[in-house]
């Protein structure tokens, strides 16, 4: 078991490496990471019970509105075991970006999410450009800067 844990750590997602592939059920159609190649993808792992996630959603909607046209795709990966918990959260805090549902936490496990929320900024070539754990209002500007750099806008 310990061995498995260390082994898992070896292929954990990290900056400069290729983002682990995933295919998950979405709000309407399945969401597959490789189909988004060529876009800058912001993968955000969130849960209904996570307070900072609730804070981050309006900002994610704002980023979606501002940079969607320039090639940004935000994928909010929900890790709730029960879909109804996620739906209740979404009724309170609507998401205008793409949603995916990872009820078993397999994808979160492959990305080795260190906390909730955990986000991964993936460049157009599919490599991870930046990683964040948690959401703090004061980090908004810095993360937006990273998104802009990944998109190639200044």
């Amino acid at each position, binding site marked *: *078991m310990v061995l498995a844990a260390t082994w898992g750590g070896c292929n954990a997602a990290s900056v400069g490496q290729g983002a682990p592939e995933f295919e998950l059920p979405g709000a309407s159609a399945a969401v597959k990471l490789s189909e988004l190649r060529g876009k800058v993808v912001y993968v955000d*792992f969130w849960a209904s*019970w996570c307070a900072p996630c609730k804070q981050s959603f309006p900002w994610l909607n704002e980023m979606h509105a501002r940079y969607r046209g320039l090639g940004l795709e935000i994928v909010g990966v929900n890790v709730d075991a029960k879909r109804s*918990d996620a739906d209740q959260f979404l009724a309170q805090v609507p998401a205008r970006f793409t949603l995916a549902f990872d009820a078993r*936490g397999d994808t979160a496990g492959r990305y080795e*999410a260190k906390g909730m929320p955990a986000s991964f900024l993936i460049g157009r070539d599919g490599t991870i450009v930046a990683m964040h754990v948690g959401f703090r209002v004061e980090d908004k500007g810095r993360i937006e800067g990273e998104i802009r750099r990944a998109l190639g806008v200044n």
Partner: protein
Amino acid sequence: MQRRIPRILLAACLPALLLSACAEVKPWQKGELAKPAMQFDGDPLAARLAQHVYFSKEGASGGYGVGGGGCGCN
């Protein structure tokens, strides 16, 4: 002599069996733990009040990171 080997084996396997119960809870698996029913204190305000009364009565200072001499006035 033949009986001792299984015993040693059992003794060696027992910690492994016990260890398997200590699975790490990953950040995305903390949904159940985040429920209000899983908190030590039912009501945060009541808990704070009880703590205040406790350290005032005990006359100890700094135990909860708050100064106090036992007068109950802080």
